[in-house]
Structure formats: structure tokens, C-alpha cells
């Protein structure tokens, strides 16, 4: 087994997990359509108590709980790619690494609060609404690590000045565009209505669409890289040599 094979295993994890995420995402009643922040506490409680919703809320969130951390091995593959770029220091890979645990952890926290809200739906509606709020604000608003990762990767690519750069320049432009697309969602708590609210065009559709697009594009780009490197036998010490 060649050294690069390990990376390929990790790589193929992502599309497999990605499918589970998409499924969970589509199945969660709170996303289709996205719940409105203007729902009163009673309405939110009724939503969680509704027997049509409750099981699906729980199952979809359990699936997220299992697999949301699966993003991390994929992101580490990108760290390894950054290490192969023509940089003088490893700082950009460290910066990327430093961001990649935060996002999934916060997704986890959001997941936790949705599950809590669903655990005892007969609870005081004000509490259910509170958990729901915390979950939504965390899920939507915590884009900082994703934005930073996109920016660091773009910087890394721009600074990868060699005849055969690890990633093509358009990947950098793409990452910056994604960072911009994610930015408005950080302000999710500012309003309860409008495009920035958690059910709004920018915070829900653009944000989640951007993440999905990023995952799809980076999967293709990374996959191409890994196979190309494997063919060329050019994979140096696999894993974190720096």
C-alpha cells in the first residue's frame, strides 16, 4: 500500500459522509422550510411537540451528531496540500489547522441544543424557544472559522508561486467568493426578519448553498490533486511532516 493511499481513504470519507449530511439536512423539519425566528414560544413548542416533526427532528439531529465531525479529516487533507506549496514557513498551514476544529465543534453545539429542545417537548415553551434560539444562532452565525479557512487557503494559493502550483488560482478566487457569501450570516442575531435572519435569503439559502458548493468543488479539486500526486509518485512524507 502506497503512502498516498491513506489520504485517499480519508478523502473518500467525505462524499460518503456528505450524503448523510444532505439527507439529515433535508429531513430535519426545521430546515424545510426554515423555521421563522418570529415564531412565538408557543408556536416553537408546538413545532417540537408535533408528532409529525418530532421523530424526524431527533433522527436527523442524531445523524448530524454522528457525522458532523467528519468534515475535519477532509479539511486536514487541505492542510497537507498547503504544506506542499512553495512557502517558506508552515504558518499558513498552521492557521488553516487552527480554524478547522472550531466550525465542526460549533455545529455540534447547535446540534446539541436542537436535540435538547426535542428531548422533552412538554417543557415550558419559553425554554424550548430558548434552546431553539441558541441552536439556530450557533448553527447560522458561527461562520468565522469557515470564512477564515477560505481566506487562509486563498492566501496560501496566491503565495504558492511556482511553475506547477498545488491549486490553480481560480480555486483561490472561489474561496474568497465563498468567504464573502458566508459573511452576512454572522449577523444572524441582529434581526428576526429579513434576509439576514436565520430563515432569510442570505443567512439560510446563500450560506448553506455556499457551504454545499464549497464542499462539492473542493472535493473535486482535492480529489484531482490526490490522484495526480499519487500517479506522479510525488507524495512526500504523507501526513503532518511540518
Amino acid at each position, binding site marked *: 500500500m502506497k503512502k498516498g493511499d491513506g489520504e485517499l481513504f480519508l478523502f473518500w470519507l467525505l462524499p460518503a459522509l456528505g450524503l448523510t449530511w444532505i439527507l439529515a439536512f433535508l429531513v430535519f423539519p426545521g430546515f424545510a422550510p426554515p423555521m421563522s*425566528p418570529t415564531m412565538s414560544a408557543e408556536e416553537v413548542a408546538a413545532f417540537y411537540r408535533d408528532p409529525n416533526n418530532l421523530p424526524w427532528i431527533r433522527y436527523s439531529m442524531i445523524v448530524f451528531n454522528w457525522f458532523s465531525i467528519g468534515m475535519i479529516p477532509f479539511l486536514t487533507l487541505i492542510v497537507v496540500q498547503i*504544506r*506542499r506549496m*512553495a*512557502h*517558506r*514557513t*508552515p*504558518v*499558513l498551514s*498552521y*492557521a*488553516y*489547522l*487552527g*480554524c*478547522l*476544529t*472550531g466550525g465542526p*465543534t*460549533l455545529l455540534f453545539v447547535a446540534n446539541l441544543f436542537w436535540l435538547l429542545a426535542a428531548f422533552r417537548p412538554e417543557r415550558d415553551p*419559553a*425554554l424550548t*424557544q*430558548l434552546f431553539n*434560539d*441558541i441552536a439556530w*444562532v*450557533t448553527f447560522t*452565525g*458561527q*461562520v*468565522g*472559522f*469557515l*470564512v*477564515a*479557512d477560505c*481566506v*487562509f487557503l486563498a*492566501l496560501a494559493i496566491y*503565495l504558492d*508561486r511556482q511553475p506547477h502550483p498545488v491549486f490553480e488560482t481560480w480555486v483561490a478566487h472561489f474561496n474568497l467568493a465563498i468567504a464573502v457569501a458566508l*459573511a452576512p450570516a*454572522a*449577523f*444572524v*442575531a*441582529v434581526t*428576526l426578519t429579513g434576509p439576514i435572519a436565520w430563515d432569510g435569503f442570505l443567512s439560510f439559502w446563500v450560506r448553506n448553498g455556499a457551504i454545499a458548493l464549497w464542499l462539492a468543488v473542493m472535493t473535486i479539486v482535492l480529489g484531482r490533486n490526490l490522484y495526480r500526486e499519487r500517479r506522479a509518485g510525488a507524495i*512526500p*512524507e504523507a501526513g*503532518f*511532516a*511540518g
Partner: protein
Amino acid sequence: MSAAVADHTRARPSGFLGRIAWHWRHDPKIELWICWWVMVSFYQLFGIVFVLMTRVMPPPRPDWDQARIVQWFSDNHTGLLVGFGIIFLVAGMTASSNAIIGYSMRRMSVSRAFAYSYIAIYSLSAIPGMLFAGILLSVGAMRPDRDPRLLAWLYDAGFLTFVGTMGVFLIGTLVWMIAILIDKNRVFPRWFGYLNICNLLTEFVVAPCWIMKTGAFAWNGSIAFWVDTGVFVVYTTAFIVLLRRMVIREDFGDGPLPDPS
């Protein structure tokens, strides 16, 4: 790379943007400078958001009754929401600080484990250090008509996580301190290694804030907050300056790039 060598000898343009463009194109240390500047910008932004916009530093009193707490949320409604929105957006900037500090440990004669543990520990530091507080206080501010008991809980939880989370910074500082003190390459001066002790101790000093609601040891107290924050500011200023000196001292120039293995 030969193009870079030739450019390096050309005269640098004047003017602010011109100089930045020159550095971007030709400075071999551009990665380090980017990390350093992002770190400095982050701390300044942090100061503006936490002190001026959200008014979370200095913190309001723990011994307020529910009505007063509700009042505080409503008084600071916009500042809290917009300020924390900014923090949510830029949280990842902390990673550049961790990156350059991790790098400083790679320049030392010590094991790589130091750099990796530091980065690992601090990559999550933003969550208890500021993001939880941001989430909880934002959720509090976003619905002014929420049950006052819940607002009081969010208030407590927000400030306690902000002021009182200690372990990350305690162990992280310890790791960096040990690295500095046993380092033979003298990347940092010894006094900074000792200063780490001061920063480490602040994490002990702040512990009573989980118990007290008034006085010097509450989360807004003269000792648990003010003296501790003073030490933190001195410490942060010191390492920002020292890291700058470290980057200036870097001497890898235009030579061949290191082998990525």
C-alpha cells in the same frame, strides 16, 4: 525564484499601497507578516467590540436583579448584536495568532510537540474565550420580551463563560512557557518566559468569580477582572512586540525553499 531575487534588488516604491504591493510580491517573509498583522488587527478589533460596542468589558455587575438585567440587555441591544456579529465573522483571525506562536516554537530547539499542543489547545480557545459569551448574550439581546428568568440565566452564563473559563489559557500558557524556558535558541528572552507565569496565575486568580457575586473577586471585581485584565494586556503587548522582533530577525531570505518533508 530567480525572478524574486532580481526584484528584491530593485528599489521599493514609496506610498502606502505601493509598499504593501511590493511586500506582497517580493517579501520572503510575507506569510509571517500577514499572520502578525492579522493578529494585531484582531486584538484591536476585539478591544473596540468588547469595550465600546458590546460593553462587555468591563462587565456589568453580577448582583443585579432581573429587572436591571433586562434593562441592560435592552440598553445595549444594538451594540451587543452588531458587535458580536462582527466577532462571529472574524473569530478565525485568532488562528493566525496561534499559527505564528506555534511557528515561534518550531524555531526553538524544543520538540515539535510544543507547537502542536499549543495550536491544538488554542484552536478551540475562541469558543469558551469569546464565542459562547457572544452566542448567549446575542440570544439574550435578540428577544427583549423573553422571560426575565431566562434572560438572567443567559446573562450569568455569558459572563461566567467569558470571564471564568480558565483551563485553555492556563495549560496553553504553560506549554509556551516551558518551551521558552528550555529553548536553547533564545527565540524569546527569558523575562518573557517568566512573564508567562504571571499570565498563567491570572487563570487561578479569576477562579473565585464562579463563587462571588460582589466585591473584589466577582466577575467585575477589582482583582478578578481589573488586575487580571491589566496583566493580560501587558502580556499580550509583550508578545506582540516580541513576535514582531522575531519576524524581523528571520533570515531565510531568497534562498531555495525548504523541503516540505
